[in-house]
Each structure stands twice: as structure tokens, then as C-alpha cells.
């Protein structure tokens, strides 16, 4: 929150100071009143749709609520997270989210998926952005083509790729066998060795364009004379890229990476549709949704949701600090 400024832009202050004192205070009082009038409906909706449900989710994670009996939920403290059951004969066992190997498997899957897919998307997105930043014939067409994966609904892309990766009739196996990369058909979405990579492949296809566009916006802010100067000095383009371009667009890349990572951490629909009921790809969101609505463990699912919320909240705070967002409208 380094740059949060609450002060007014100087121009407006100057403008208001020119008016007579009485009129000014009347005017600013009226403007202040209407500001809150304008903000109230929006804030009310956000409180109803985000604030209150979040509090409720956290509350349910400390109860024994089940899907069939939400209203009869009773407070059970930390039992959904951490519980030691003493069997009486000196032995006992730990239960709860923190001791659930399936949960940690989901956490691992989520982290693995996020790190790998965001890394590939960043490198590929940077390459796409560099190409799109160059002048060539048909650039507008290429730029339009790149937007297509982004415009396709996630569910549709999951289905499209499920069909292309079909083990018997899929075109992907056919292509790879024709080229000679694989010798027999692979069941991409079902095989434990490839299921996660199938998910990553679809995600990379769908979100690389978004990455490329964000990075491209950063690239276009690099002034052209920087390249001119490097060219006159006879510096090799590769060196220019590493020493000049990359440092200049690093902020844009960083923001894009954090945005994508936050998105990837909460992934649900792609995995739910492409690889249903598969422990090799189950992520935190899928785990939570299953417990909430399929296994009748509403409270336990709420605990998982709360955990995921805390992870994302932590990263968001980190992002706001790193990006030093300009919230007051100054210094731009």
C-alpha cells in the first residue's frame, strides 16, 4: 500500500479555492453527500454477495453443518481442521483438514498446476508478444487469431480438447503417431501419468493469448528510440532483449504472472469437465466443491474453501504491495 494517496489532484483544489468560501463548503458538502449516495447501492450489493457469504463460509467451517441440515449447524470449534480422537487405550488418531492426505494431494496438485502452467504461459506469452510487436504483413490478422482461444468459454475448450485427446478417435494421437513421437494411442485424460499434463496443455492454449496481450501492452510502452540507439551502437538484438527490453517490461510481466497465478489457484471448471473424478488432477476448489455438494460434508468443504481463501488473500496482499497500485490517482 505504498502509494495510496487520499489527496486531491492539485488542479481541482486550485479550482475550488477560487470560489467564495460559503459556496464552496455548500458545494463540497453536496458533492460529498452524493458521493455516498452513489456508492451505497454498489457497496450494499458487494456486501451481500461477497462480504456476508464469506463470513458465513468461515462460520460453517467451525460447525458440523451438513448439506441436508445447514440450519441445524452447531459450533464444533476447530474440529474440521484439527481433531485428536483418543481411543482410550493410550492410542489415538488425528483427523481434520490438516491431517487429510487427500486434501494435501489437492493442494499439491493445485500448486503443481499453477507453477507449471503459469511458467509455460509466461515464456510462450512473451514469445507471442515479441512477434506481435514486430511490424509485418498480416499482423492485424494474427492478433485477431490470437484472441480466439481467449474468447472461447472454458467449458467449450475443455470439451473440444477432450475430443481431440480422445484415446480412440482423437486427432492428437493421430498427429503424434504420424510424426512418430508416440507409437501407440495415449489415453491423455485418463492415464495418471498424462492427466495433469492434459489439463496444463488446455490451460496453456486458452490463456497464453491473455498473457501475450498483457505483455504486449508493456512492450508497446518501451520507447522506440531505445532500439534506435542500440542499433546505432551495433548491439546484438539478443543482448538488447536481455539488457534493455526485459528489464523495462518486467513490471508488466510480474503483474500478468500474479494475475494468472491467482486465477490458476482457484481453477475449477476446466478440471471438473476435462478430468472428472480423477485424484491425479483434483485441485483445492474441486475438493471443496465435492465435499460441499456431493459428499454431504458441508462443514468440511467450508473449511477447505476457507483455507483456499486465506492462501489467495495472502497472495493478493503481496501483489498489492509489489505492484504499488496507484489508488489515489496521483503520480501517473
Amino acid at each position: 500500500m505504498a502509494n495510496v494517496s487520499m489527496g486531491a489532484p492539485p488542479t481541482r483544489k486550485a479550482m475550488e479555492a477560487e470560489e467564495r468560501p460559503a459556496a464552496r463548503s455548500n458545494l463540497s458538502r453536496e458533492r460529498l453527500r452524493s458521493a455516498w449516495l452513489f456508492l451505497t447501492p454498489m457497496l450494499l450489493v458487494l456486501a451481500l454477495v461477497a462480504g456476508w457469504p464469506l463470513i458465513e463460509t468461515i462460520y460453517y467451517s467451525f460447525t458440523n453443518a451438513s448439506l441436508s441440515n445447514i440450519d441445524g449447524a452447531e459450533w464444533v470449534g476447530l474440529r474440521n481442521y484439527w481433531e485428536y480422537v483418543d481411543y482410550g487405550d493410550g492410542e489415538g488418531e488425528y483427523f481434520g483438514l490438516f491431517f487429510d492426505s487427500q486434501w494435501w494431494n489437492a493442494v499439491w496438485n493445485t500448486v503443481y498446476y499453477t507453477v507449471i502452467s503459469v511458467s509455460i504461459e509466461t515464456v510462450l506469452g512473451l514469445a507471442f508478444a515479441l512477434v506481435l510487436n514486430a511490424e509485418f504483413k498480416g499482423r492485424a490478422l494474427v492478433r485477431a487469431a490470437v484472441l480466439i482461444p481467449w474468447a472461447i468459454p472454458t467449458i467449450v475448450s475443455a470439451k473440444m480438447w477432450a475430443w481431440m485427446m480422445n484415446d480412440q478417435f482423437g486427432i492428437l494421437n493421430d498427429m503424434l503417431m504420424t510424426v512418430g513421437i508416440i507409437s501407440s494411442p495415449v489415453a491423455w485424460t485418463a492415464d495418471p501419468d498424462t492427466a495433469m499434463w492434459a489439463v496444463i496443455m488446455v490451460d496453456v492454449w486458452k490463456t497464453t493469448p491473455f498473457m501475450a496481450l498483457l505483455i504486449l501492452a508493456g512492450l508497446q510502452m518501451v520507447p522506440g528510440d531505445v532500439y534506435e540507439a542500440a542499433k546505432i551502437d551495433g548491439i546484438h538484438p539478443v543482448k538488447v532483449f536481455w539488457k534493455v527490453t526485459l528489464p523495462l517490461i518486467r513490471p508488466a510481466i510480474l503483474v500478468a504472472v500474479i494475475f494468472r497465478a491467482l486465477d490458476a489457484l482457484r481453477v475449477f471448471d476446466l478440471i471438473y469437465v476435462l478430468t472428472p473424478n480423477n485424484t491425479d488432477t483434483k485441485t483445492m476448489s474441486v475438493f471443496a466443491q465435492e465435499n460441499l455438494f456431493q459428499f454431504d460434508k458441508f462443514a468440511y468443504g467450508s473449511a477447505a474453501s476457507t483455507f483456499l481463501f486465506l492462501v489467495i488473500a495472502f497472495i493478493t496482499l503481496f501483489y498489492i504491495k509489489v505492484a504499488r497500485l496507484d489508488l489515489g490517482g496521483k503520480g501517473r
Partner: protein
Amino acid sequence: MEAIAKRVGFYALVVFIVLFSVFPFYYAILTSFESGTALFDVNYLPTEFSLANYRDVLTNGVFPLNILNSVIVAVTVVVISLFLAVTAAYALSRINFRGRGLLLLTILAVSMFPQIAVLAGLFEMIRSVGLYNSLFSLIFAYMIFTLPFTVWVLTTFMRDLPVEIEEAAIVDGASPFVIVTKVFLPLMWPALVTTGLLAFIAAWNEFLFALTFVSNNETRTVPVAIALLSGASEQEIPWGTIMAASVIVTVPLIVLVLVFQRKIVSGLTAGGVKG
């Protein structure tokens, strides 16, 4: 010689990018026009032009109703969130008051909310007010991602407009509401189109809430309907119909995106890298 090699390499990269982006959707269209056994041969080029799959998906079952539901939900969500966002963005960008920075920070934080974190609470709320299985539940729930986004983008847009445009109206004693509707709104069409379109796409594509808050086939929206399309038997997945349905719901989006591509790119980057 080296220059030619470089050019060839560059254009090879360009061709790769285009194929990478376009091929999967091209293949979906190709499949959607195939029926019977042709479906199960791998074809790289069109071999058949049959409309059977389209007839299937549009006449059997409730898919047309699902499309209508999606249109109703997405349009309503866009209208409500733009209305709430324009006035809020005016207050956040043009009027100084204590706590403005904190408010903007809160709005940004809400836009990062994982949907799953509010799912349990929202479900309970929607069930207890009797909105379960109705489109209103989705219209309400979708505000969680469209509203912060529209407010954020419109605020950055309004903040960059010069002070002078308001001056005359203030001197004339116009009320803030008149200033918003008469002075700002006419200038804001580009920003409204962009944010509205992005909000529309987000609402059109949403899956988790739609899966959770609606369980009637007749009330479902398109993404859930496509995810749950099944054939006569458990084993038999109707790929042809799924692809036809996919093409039907995707083509309008692609047309919109291509028509407004410049605006969309600027809207995305305003939401993303500004700051």
C-alpha cells in the same frame, strides 16, 4: 542468405502461432458437420457437410431454452452492473472523500475473491430466500465478479478525463446526478462498451455458480448444459452434438471479440497492468 533464413524463421513462428490458436476451434467446427461413421475417422480437412448435429441439438431437448437463459442472465448482469458502476465510479474518481483509497482497495480485493470461498455462504443465502433453481440466483451471484471489475475499469477511465469538462456544469449548479448523466455518460460510450462486453463474456462463461445454484434442466445456462450433454447410453458420448452446441455458443462471442478487438485489449490491460 542469413536475412532470408531469419525471415523464413519469423514467418514459421507466425504460422505456428496462428495454427496453435485457431486449429482446435477449426477442428470443432469440422466435427460438428460430421455425422455417423465419418465422426470417428480422423479428418484434417472437411469431408462432409451434414447439419444433423445442429438439428439434434436445437430440436431435441432443452438446449434452446438454455441459450435463452444464458442471454437473459448475461444481459441483466451487464445492465445492472454498469448502472451501479457508473455512478460509483464517478464518486470514486471525481469526488474527494476520506477512505476513498481504502474503498478502492476493498473493491480490488473482492475482484480477486475465489468463487469457492463464498460458495457455501451464497448457497445457504440463496436457498433461504427461495431463489434456488431460479435465474435470479445467478444474476445476483454474478455481481461478485462483474461489479468490482466494471467499477475498477470505469474509475480508471473517468479519472483520466480532464477537470475542465465538469467545471462549466458545476458553475451552472448542476447536481452530481445530472453531471454524470449529461456530461460523463456521452463521453463514456467506448469504456461502457468494453467493460459491458467483458462482463457479458464473464457471465456467459461462468460455470461453478451455475452448476451449484440451478439443478433444473430447463433453468440451466449454456456452459452447464454443454458439460452435462449425454447420449442415449452412459458410454456413448455424443461428440457431434457437443461440438455443434459448442460452436453455436462460441461463434457469437468470437464475432463480438473480433469486432471490438482493440477496445477489448485496452479494457483488459486497464484492468490488469494499470498502476
